[in-house]
Each structure stands twice: as structure tokens, then as C-alpha cells.
């Protein structure tokens, strides 16, 4: 029998950026918050010997332990879904701070176009995509979400420059000046300008200078150590929930943080939720945590899975198009290329979000009337720090092992530069999340099942962006360029992006969304669900700025609900 604990005002499932925003905002407003995180406790003191590529980058030291829980995957409904047995295509977070500990920290806004994509596409191009694509407006415009973007960018600190002519209006400048422009980046910038593009320093939640957040947390200047992506920052220079948000909640004395607490069910009675059930992963004991308000902050996958397991909302049915839970599951289109140069460069130094980006082929910033796709992607050259196990690029035609490989991989380590795009991903009626009926997690619960494949739109966008990237690298003076192949089918093995979205989307109408524009569940008004799962489609850049903005919007919703106890729309 599960032990029933004392009731709290708010419980969050998961403590990453979203759980951190909810905890900081609600505790500061005087509410008691319990934070339940399935992984272990950690602080910056756990990162003192983090420069270990084998442990952290290759063996996913900070990421989800799949022996406990994974997902199953099929490209289409006709296949047999099989478990993702090893991490690859995306790297799910685990432990206090979630994926926000080992992220790159590119912190970028979506365009005004994204929030009204259906209306604006129709206005300019008519019915360009077939009805198989479930395009929808978000239920919040860019102008409405803008203040929340600003809040998040200041709360975690962001270095950047207002130079892109395609940006939506900003109410305030970036909190910090951009990171340093390395020689590699200024060469890329020049090449982009030569091609008529509008490059700018990639907005980074990495400190270009010492920074004190509005909550009073101190962050330090980046040391350009090159161990950002897949690692925690030992200098508190890269923002993460554990150095910007969680301490804020802890200082109020109103935050009860419990790690090693894996939530298995959201309890519901009538049209309200009453709390959550969790398992202490160290002792195996079960607990029920009653709460006035439950906020799911457990990332795209488990936010959807917990709603499905708890039978809250109607499952999406791809046959009939009815139901909303699991719908609009999107990913990212990720073309990229490596350029090989004559000169040696300091590729080992850098930071996860140290880069130059351009939006000339992103959003609706260019005319799509003669193209087979809409939207586009941000193109970036990152100077993130190449590492020797992961970076072994060789020019086309070189064998992949043996004497020639050794020579070419050693020679090119300091002479190879990559550029890549983050292509937007649009919802398709055949791409969705559901529960698996064969495979189970360590708690005996069904795994989440992902049915996903690239679409015609994706492949057309891929080719288009791929060519632009090749041109940029050639303009930079590359001797040769190797591009990533345009795969017919989505493959779960090679790393592509952890920018997974949808499944619990937001909107103005319960017919096509799971939550309203306060991330409040349509079927239970004291339940909030927040994260990239709320995106009705995935934009052409990194998601977390938008995730953080929605988390601030959600926190406002929780506080409003706490006063009124009714649906907020």
C-alpha cells in the first residue's frame, strides 16, 4: 500500500527548466511546492572532473538510464514497434536540472510567424500543404508571449546581439553582450555576408561576463573550455536549472525537493486531479503526494505518458483524426555538412552555444511560392569545442578505418568545421505518441510508443538547406565539403537533435489541443502540463527559450488558478 503524505499546494513532476520555473515562481509567491525528480541530486560540485568525453559524451553519463525506462519506436503504423535500446537520436535528461544541465545553451526565440503559422501560411500561399499536415495556430501570438521570453532570458542570463533583421520585436535588449567572436566565427560571418545573408552571434545562455540574475543568483564568465554539450559546467557559466532556478526556490524555505522519486500516476477524481503517486527508486516504496495543483514538467515523453497512463484526456486516433493526446508529435530536420580546410584552427576551444547563426532561410523570411515546403531552419556554425573520440571527420572517399583513415582523421581534426541547420518540423497526421502494448518499464508500466517518419515537406526542406550550408562552407574557403545524406526514413540511431515536440499541445480549442494557453488541462483545471510537448509544431531553431517562456506563462496560470480555482479561459 502506498503511504499517503501531507497535502501540498503544488507538486511538480520533474525538476528541469520547466519544473525550476514553476518552483521559483510559486514558492516566491508563498505557495508550498514539492518537486519530485526521478534522478539523483546534483550541484556544480559534481562537475569538477567532468572533462571526460568517454564517460559523459559517448556513454551518456548524465542522461536517462534506459534500463529503467525507454520508448518504443516505429516509422509507421504498419511496422512492429521495438524498444530504443540505447540512446542515440535524442538524449533525454535525468537527474536534478534535467537536460538543462547538459544542453548547449543556444537560447533563441521562435518567430511571430510560428505562433500563427496556419493563418499566415494560408494568407500568403493558400492551401499549400495537404490536410495531412495538422498545422495550427498556437493560441498565443508572439506579442502575447514576448514578455515571458524576456523574463526567461533575464532569469537564466542570455548573451547576444540584436542584429538579425528577421527577429520579432524585443521589449528589452539581451541581458549580456555576445560571447567572443573567434577567428573561425568571423570567417563564417564573412562568408555569410558575401552570400548576402545576415549573420549574428548565436544567443547563448552562457555568460559573456559575470552576471547576477533578477532573482539574485550569480553566474561567472565562460572559460571556453569546450565541454558544454553533454556535460555540466563546472564554472556556473552555462545556465542550468541548478544554478539559476532551483536555488531560488530553496532559499524561500517553501520548497520540498525530493530526488529519486519516479512518478507513475496522476490521481484523478471527477474533474479534478488530487495528487500523484511515486516510487522511491532507492527503496522501492510507493507514496501518494496529495496536492491542490499538479504540474507535469517531465519533458515531452513523460508528460504524454503520464497523462495516457492516468487516462486523462482523449487519445489521438490517426484513423479518425479524433482525440488530442499524442497528436502533433514533431521533431527536427537536421541537414549539416563538414568543410575541410588547409589551415589548422583552435577547434578544441569553444563553448556549447558559441556560434554565428543566420535566419535568411528560416521561418517565412524567404519566398516559398516556388518551393515544395514551408518554413525553414536556422543555420549555425558552432565553435563548441571538437573532441577527439567524437570528431573523426574525413573527406569523401577516405576509408573508415586503417592506415589511411588514421592519417586523414588525425590531419583533419584541427582542419574540419561543421555547419548545420535546425529545420522546422510540421505535424503530420501519421506522426504521434501512444502507449506500447508489449514492452514495459522498470515499474511495470507500458512504454511510450513513438510513431514517426520524415515527410515530403521534410525531405524537400532538407535538400534546400543542405545546399545553402554547402555554399556557406565553400564561400569560407573549404577545399571539400561532405554533407549528411538526406535519409528517406527517420532513423533513431544517429544523434540528430533532442528537440522533440508535441503530444500535449496548447491551443484555443479543446478539439485540437490538450491544454489551453496557460498550459492548463482542458479536462482537469487544477492540472497543468508544460514543456516542448505544448508546441503545435516545432520551429526552425532550439526550443528552450520558448519552453521557458511557456513555463513562465504556466506559472502565472498556476498562481491565478490558486486564487480563483476555475478554468482560466
Amino acid at each position, binding site marked *: 500500500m502506498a503511504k499517503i503524505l501531507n497535502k501540498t499546494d503544488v507538486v511538480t513532476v520533474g525538476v528541469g527548466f520547466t519544473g525550476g520555473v514553476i518552483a521559483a515562481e510559486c514558492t516566491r509567491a508563498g505557495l508550498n511546492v514539492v518537486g519530485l525528480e526521478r534522478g539523483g541530486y546534483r550541484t556544480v560540485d559534481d562537475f569538477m572532473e567532468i572533462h571526460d568525453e568517454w564517460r559523459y559524451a559517448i*556513454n551518456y553519463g548524465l542522461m536517462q538510464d534506459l534500463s529503467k525506462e525507454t520508448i518504443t519506436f516505429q516509422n509507421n503504423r504498419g511496422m512492429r514497434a521495438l524498444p530504443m535500446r540505447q540512446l542515440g537520436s535524442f538524449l533525454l535528461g535525468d537527474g536534478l536540472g534535467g537536460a538543462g544541465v547538459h544542453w548547449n545553451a543556444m537560447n533563441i526565440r521562435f518567430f511571430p510567424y510560428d505562433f500563427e503559422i496556419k493563418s499566415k501560411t494560408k494568407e500568403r500561399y493558400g492551401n499549400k500543404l495537404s490536410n495531412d499536415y495538422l498545422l495550427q495556430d498556437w493560441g498565443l501570438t508572439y506579442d502575447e508571449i514576448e514578455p515571458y521570453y524576456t523574463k526567461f532570458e533575464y532569469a537564466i542570463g542570455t548573451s547576444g546581439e540584436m542584429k538579425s533583421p528577421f527577429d520579432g520585436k524585443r521589449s528589452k535588449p539581451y541581458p549580456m553582450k555576445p560571447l567572443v567572436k573567434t577567428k573561425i566565427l568571423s570567417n563564417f560571418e564573412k562568408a555569410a555576408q558575401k552570400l548576402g545573408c545576415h549573420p549574428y552571434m548565436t544567443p547563448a545562455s552562457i555568460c559573456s561576463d559575470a552576471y547576477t540574475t533578477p532573482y539574485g543568483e550569480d553566474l561567472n564568465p565562460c572559460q571556453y573550455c569546450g565541454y558544454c554539450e553533454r556535460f555540466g559546467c563546472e564554472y556556473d557559466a552555462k545556465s542550468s536549472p541548478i544554478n539559476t532556478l532551483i536555488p531560488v526556490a530553496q532559499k524561500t524555505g517553501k520548497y520540498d525537493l525530493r530526488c529519486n522519486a519516479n512518478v507513475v500516476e496522476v490521481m484523478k477524481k471527477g474533474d479534478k486531479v488530487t495528487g500523484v503517486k511515486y516510487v522511491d527508486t532507492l527503496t522501492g516504496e510507493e507514496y501518494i503526494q496529495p496536492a491542490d495543483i499538479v504540474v507535469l514538467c517531465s519533458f515531452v515523453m513523460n508528460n504524454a505518458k503520464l497523462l495516457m497512463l492516468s487516462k486523462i484526456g482523449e487519445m489521438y486516433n490517426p484513423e479518425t483524426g479524433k482525440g488530442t493526446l499524442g497528436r502533433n508529435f514533431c521533431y527536427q530536420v537536421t541537414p549539416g555538412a563538414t568543410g575541410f580546410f588547409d589551415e589548422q584552427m583552435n577547434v578544441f576551444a569553444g563553448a556549447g552555444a558559441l556560434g554565428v547563426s543566420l535566419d535568411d532561410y528560416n521561418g517565412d523570411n524567404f519566398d516559398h511560392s516556388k518551393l515544395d515546403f514551408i518554413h525553414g531552419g536556422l543555420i549555425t556554425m558552432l565553435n563548441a569545442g571538437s*573532441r577527439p573520440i567524437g570528431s573523426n571527420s574525413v573527406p569523401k572517399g577516405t576509408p573508415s578505418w586503417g592506415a589511411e583513415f588514421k592519417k586523414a582523421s588525425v590531419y583533419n581534426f584541427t582542419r574540419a568545421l561543421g555547419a548545420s541547420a535546425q529545420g522546422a518540423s510540421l505535424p503530420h497526421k501519421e506522426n504521434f505518441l501512444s502507449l506500447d502494448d508489449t514492452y514495459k518499464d522498470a515499474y511495470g508500466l507500458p512504454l511510450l510508443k513513438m510513431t514517426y517518419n520524415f515527410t515530403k515537406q521534410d525531405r524537400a526542406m532538407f535538400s534546400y538547406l543542405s545546399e545553402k550550408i554547402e555554399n556557406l562552407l565553400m564561400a569560407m574557403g573549404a577545399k571539400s565539403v561532405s554533407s549528411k545524406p538526406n535519409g528517406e526514413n527517420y532513423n533513431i540511431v544517429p544523434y540528430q537533435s533532442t528537440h522533440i515536440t508535441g503530444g500535449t499541445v496548447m491551443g484555443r480549442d479543446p478539439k485540437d489541443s490538450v491544454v489551453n494557453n496557460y498550459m492548463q488541462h482542458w479536462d482537469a483545471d487544477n492540472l497543468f502540463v508544460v514543456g516542448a510537448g505544448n508546441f503545435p509544431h516545432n520551429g526552425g531553431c532550439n526550443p528552450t527559450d520558448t519552453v521557458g517562456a511557456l513555463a513562465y506563462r504556466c506559472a502565472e496560470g498556476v498562481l491565478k488558478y490558486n486564487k480563483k480555482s476555475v478554468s482560466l479561459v
Partner: protein
Amino acid sequence: MSDKMFISRRKFLKTTGITAGLAAVGGSLIAFETAEAKGNDAHNTHTAAQKNSGIPRARMFFTNVLDFNILSAAAERIFPKDELGPGAVELGVPYFIDHQLAGAYGYNAREYMVGPHFEGAPTQGYQTPLLRKDLFLQGIAAINKQAKTQYKLDFPDLSPAQQDDILKMCEKGDIKTDGFKSSFFFSVFKSAVIAGVYADPMYGGNADMSGWKMKQYPGARMAYTDIIESDKFENIEPISLADMM
């Protein structure tokens, strides 16, 4: 460098960073880096003891010398010794793999191994119930069997060209194996060799940081504030995690 010093470096950043700004902090850090690189005597003896010849070499996983020799010979063909520097064997890669197979990596400890197992499409990733330690034993046995059938010799006794022929067959999936494709084994094996060349020396490969030196990779260094804006290529001596303890 002791843990305490290490943490105090961060605290130092916290206190001075705010008023001092980037340049000063960068400058102070260089001082730390230099101290770190020079170290004190005790610490230098420690790293010297770690050097190639001084490493206590013994096997944790392989019980059979022939298996280990097959692994070593094959690894050397993937990453051979040449004028650039040592190959897999001299770098200790076979010991790296041996040690890894004895632990979490060999037992797929953090992967989902629950059945039922079906073959699946290539887009769904590997689906074999074989643990990596068994995959290596089976793969090595299959390679040697092929050597015996084709050349009547054990794999380590073949000429490099003959060894390459067999490895190419393995890479293509043309060697007979049970329950997995030889191409799958090959790709896992190849990745393990590369990892052994370049992982921190504490894991048993990358002896004397020679893998890093070949690539001119500075290893586990803590900061590059001093060179990040440099216009020229900087050839920096590597340091390993052991240098920072």
C-alpha cells in the same frame, strides 16, 4: 591539484569575477593553468608513473590469451602504428577494451535489454539480446574461425593484408555469426578502438596521451580564455584528468 584547490578556483571566480570582468579573470586563470601544468614534485612523480611503461597492465575480462591477441591484432589494423605515432596496441587500446568489457559497458548496464527481441528495421537500432561482452567474444571467435578456414592460421599470425581481408568481410557482414551480423560487431568494435585511442588515459588506453598528441588535442584542460581570440593555431601540451587530482 587537490579537490579543495579546484573548488576554491570556482569560488575565486565567484568573488572576483563580478567586479574584475573577463580579462582579469582570464589572466588569473592562466596563472592557475601554469601552476597546474608545472605542478608540485609529488604530483609530477604521480603522472610519470602513469606513463606507458609504468602502467600496471593486466586483464580484467579476457581469460584466454588467444582471444586477447586476436582483439589486439584486429585493433592494430583499425588504428595502425605509422610515422605519425603509435598504433592501438602501443596505446593500450586492447586493455582499454578489456577493462570496459568487465564493467557497465560490457554488461549494457544502462540500456534496455528486456525481451522479446525481434530483428527490426535498421532505423530501429540494434535489437540483439547479446550483452556487449558476449558480442566481443563471439565476434572475435568468428574472426578467428574465418582466419582458420581461409588461411589455416590463427588471426594474429596472418599478414596485415590477410588480416585486412578478414576484417573487410566482417565489416560487410560476410562472416558467419549466430544471432547478430558480423557488420554489427565490426561497427561496435571499431568505435571501441577509436574510443581507446582517445579516451582519458585513466581508462587504460591513450598511453602517455599520445592519441591526443597526434591530434594536437590539449586534453582535459580547464580553460581557453587566454587563446580563444587568438588568430593562429595554438599547439598546447595536453593534460589528463590524473594531472588535476
